[in-house]
């Protein structure tokens, strides 16, 4: 791991007894994600999906150059609010993660962490060609090429860069997916957790976090 603060260390308790600290295990919850079942009452699930689709809270995390395209959505010209789309500053309270453009390996680590900290059901919109196949950075030494190797993606929006209208269209698509009960990225992630994690670890050399960031 190589991170000094994550190495095991010995501290002394107030009584002078040594305590071994194993940061990764001691500070972080080690549980792995589980598949969260849909509500057994179909109509309730439908109602909930309707509400989820009308209240999309977007994590305010611009991961790449496409972040510039999200801002216009708040302006009078595009006014995404009318579709129930709002921005939240913390992953805990967000539903939608917009991966805005190319994703460097360094950022990927943060993306994984933030994604895992969001509460399910949660959705990912991949914005721009870079998230589909690497786009113009397809042979770059430090960007990823295909986002859904690392986290499940609900909607891809192609283009370099897609315009805000395209983004809005993507949101509409997402809403449709949610209403149809297909927005189960979180469960997909849980089901195929080992595969995702292996992919992530393959590309992130300095893996310095627990397997799942609660």
């Amino acid at each position, binding site marked *: 791991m190589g991170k000094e603060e994550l190495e095991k260390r010995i501290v002394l308790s107030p009584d002078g007894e040594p305590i071994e600290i194993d940061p990764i295990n001691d500070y972080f919850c080690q549980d792995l994600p589980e598949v969260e079942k849909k509500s057994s009452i179909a109509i309730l699930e439908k109602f909930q999906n309707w509400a989820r689709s009308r209240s999309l809270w977007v994590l305010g995390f611009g991961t790449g150059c496409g972040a510039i395209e999200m801002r216009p959505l708040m302006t009078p010209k595009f006014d995404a609010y009318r579709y129930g789309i709002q921005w939240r500053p913390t992953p805990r309270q967000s539903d939608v993660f917009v991966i805005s453009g190319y994703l460097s390996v360094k950022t990927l680590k943060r993306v994984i*962490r*933030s994604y895992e900290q969001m509460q399910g059901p949660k959705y990912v919109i991949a914005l721009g060609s870079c998230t589909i196949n690497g786009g113009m950075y397809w042979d770059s030494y430090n960007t990823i090429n295909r986002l859904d190797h690392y986290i499940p993606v609900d909607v891809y929006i192609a283009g370099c860069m897609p315009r805000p209208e395209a983004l809005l269209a993507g949101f509409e698509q997402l809403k449709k997916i949610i209403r149809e009960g297909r927005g189960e990225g979180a469960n997909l992630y849980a089901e195929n957790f080992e595969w995702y994690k292996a992919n992530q670890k393959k590309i992130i050399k300095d893996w310095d976090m627990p397997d799942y960031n609660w």
Partner: protein
Amino acid sequence: MVNPIYIVAVLLGVAFTSGFFSKKGKNIAGYLSMLALGFVSFVSLQWLHGFLSEQQAAAQIFTTAFKPPFSINLLMGKEEAVFTSLINIMGLIGGLYLFRKLKETGSNAFIALLLLIMGLNVIVMTRDLFNLFVFMEISSIAIAGLIILSQNVKSISSGFKYMLAGGLISGMLLLGTVFLYYFTGTLNIDGMLQQNLNLVKGSSVAVFLVITAIVLELKPFPANGWGVDVYEGADAGISALISSAYATASVYVFMKLIPVASEQFQFLIAAIGIITFVASNLMGLRQSNPNRLLGYSSISQIGLLMAIIGLSSVIGESTNFIVISILVSHYFAKAGLFWISGIIKTNSIRDWSVLRHSKILLVSFGIFIFALVGLPPFPSFFGKWELIMNLSGSHNFIWVTAILVGSFLEAAYMFRWLGYAIKLELPSEIKPVIKLNKIIPVILFAASVITAGYFTGMNHEYGKLINYIPLAFALAFVLIEFLPVFIKNTLAIAGLALYFYLNYQSYTDISRIFAAIFLLGGILTLLAGYAYKGKRLGFFPFALMMFAGLIGLIEAKSTLEFFYAWELMTIGSYFLIIRGKKSITHALSYMLFSIGGAYLIMAGLGIASIGKADLTLSILHQVTEYAPLVFILLAVGFMTKTASIGLHIWLPGAHAEAEADVSPMVSAILLKAGVFGLLILLMAMGEQFIGKVSIPYLLSWVGALTALMGNMMAAFQEDAKKLLAYSSIGALGYAVFGLSLMSHLGWLTAISFSITHFMLKALLFLAIGGVVWRLKTKDMYKMGGLIKRMPFSFFSVLIGIIVLAGVPPLTGFSGKWLFYQAVMEKQWFLQGAVLFFSGIIAFLYCFRLIHAIFLGQLKDEHRNVKEAPFWILVPQYILLAVLLGFSFLPGSMLKPIGNMLLPFLPDGAIHWNGQLATTVYGYWNGKTVMIIIVGIFSVVFGWLWFMNRKARKIKQFNIVYAAERPFRPETTHFAYNFFAPYKKAIGFLVAPGITNFWNRIDEGAHAVSDKFTKLYNGNGQTYLIHIVAFIVVIYLISFGGF
């Protein structure tokens, strides 16, 4: 009865005989001398016993066949018996102490000692002026001989200075004696007294010479450099002799001769005495050499006695009682202190921590310091009390002020010294050699001064009434100190419980509440003491002494009993406070503020007693003269204990540094003594005015500002216990405000608030004490996340802060509600708003307390800490139960208090209907509020639990950290300088102005002290010039010119 002449005969005889023993026979000479001293002690004690049992009449002894004035006659009366006993015992015990040293020198040394004692005996007994001169000379030659035993330049040069000064003074005395003889035709003192000397032309100069010579013997300021030097330079054992035996004799000579002088001259001398007292104590402030410090102290005490004797015409018949009680204290204490100094032989009072090698010496040291300062149960306590009562009773306020200022200065350096001995680091290089013959005298004198205190008390009209049982109970724990904590704690609790059970019915209404706070509170906090292991030396006697004092306040019928109890409480709490870590400065400032406050109380009680036949506490009801002054003095005195603004600087450190169970004792319980004092003061004296300004009105502002300052300071503390300590200051501000309202609701607020504050502060201090116990740090930012390790303590603190913040539905709100009703009624809105503001600030520190300690990030090193000790939790949960009970049924607390207050303040009482309280302005039903809130809470909780029952428990670093992860708990826990923006905005309000003010006073006193001591440049000749100048100035003052 053995004829007193044998005192002289035996001493002289043995002294002569000893001369025949060669060097080999020095042992025999030594034992013989001791025997002789033992014999003379027996003789004088026998006479004393005779006088005390009132079987004996004074006896005159004539040395020749002639009657005076043609012969020399000795008188053995009651006073003489006292003084010779003191001198002879000092000779015996002092001789024992010096035995080895004297033996080294040989029989000559014993001869000098015997001659000294013999001389002093005659000085006391003789009624002949010339005889007096002769024996004074003999004594001083003997002393000079003793001083020179130590063959080092310091003692020799000091002895030389002493000889020079003594020569000059005795020359003057002789001149005066001869002139007196010339004018009166007699050398007999009684003969002189029979003639009215003021009418005899020219005799006033003779009187002037004689009296001034005697005064100079008593080392008045500033003509006393030689005296101080001798105290420092001579061997400590000899200094003890000088200070105790020689000074005692000199004082008696002065007492004997002073009636010769005219009344104005007596006043002049009294003034000199008082100046000496104050100036010497001031100079004592900057002394670091123990012997020199004791020298200044000796001189100051003698100065005080000089003043008292000079004022005897004012003081009246109790002069002798005062003089003897103060002198006896001084005698035992100073001898003991010099002896201890001789044992440990250091040049700096900072090295006195070596005393801790010997517990018994340390205890004795403490006893002597207290005896010297005049705290109970020592003789000087009664002496000083009587003195202040008499002086203030006769309107001599300037004298009272000077005496109190001087005493205060003395207390300052004495307690600083005691603090050094108890708390400073042990110097490694010094290890005192403790020899039996040196330690026995110390112990003897320490025991004697306690006994003397008891007898003095018994001989005092009101001292007799004092209930010594609680104190005796406390002191009994000294004897069982070897037992483990468990047994002692059980005994202590049983004692308090039994006492409360036996007596609670005898307390009247409001007293009973405070008795319950003091005693039941004491039991509760003592419960926590079971957590301690080992013996816990020195805890129980003082804790119980404090409780003895507290209960004494409740039981006091007379002003003396009250004051006695007040002082007792101070002593006990002082030792409890000084037990803490780093408590040295805090304990000192606590003691100084307490003593300052106590002196104000004493002065106030004294002035209140003007024109009163008796000294029962009821005199406060009928103060006619100077009532506002009395009120202010007493109120300020009490407010030193409630730590009101300006007088609060002792509190935070003292309470913060105390042990886990001591903090609640001193904070939750002790502070209520001040409230109790203010309460009985207000009850007795009602509203007083300065001009047209009502004093309670001023008090209300004091209360409001105290609350504001205390709470604001609390919000900015990093130290958890300091935070609580400042919060106590703020809380007491509320209590003072409530009392100052002088209305039913106001007092109800104050009293119920006192009860609540007692409970919640005990709860919080215990809880935090338990945390500190485990974590071994008080800095909040070093803690965090302890809710997972200490859930029980967390719950205590949670309830504690909710009560403290006054948030409904817990009982804290009842205080706030009452407070507003009272403010509305009294219409003191601005103060009320300030208090409300401070109440809101309480949220700041409440949150900080619980957040920084229990919430946030758990630190690595605290990962395995255990819950606080069981016995520290027990009292907490008892208190919690009571608090919650009162929260549910507030009427059960408020109704009885209201009924108790009805006789005093019938107007504006609360109307109760079940638990619904109604006043003119508002209403409140604690029970239904509780039910509603609990109801809503349960429903919401149930709903949340149902919705989130599957919530996943995650760990401390599983937080959203801007897509990063935390580095370390230390850097993730936000606790240091928690209210930084607040500090930035209004932090200037809590700039340490008051602390700086007191610091400047302290520095100023030291600077003045420094300037004064520069007078004593060490040159013997300069000292002589001082003496001559002194004589000239006194002459000019008394015979015109000035």
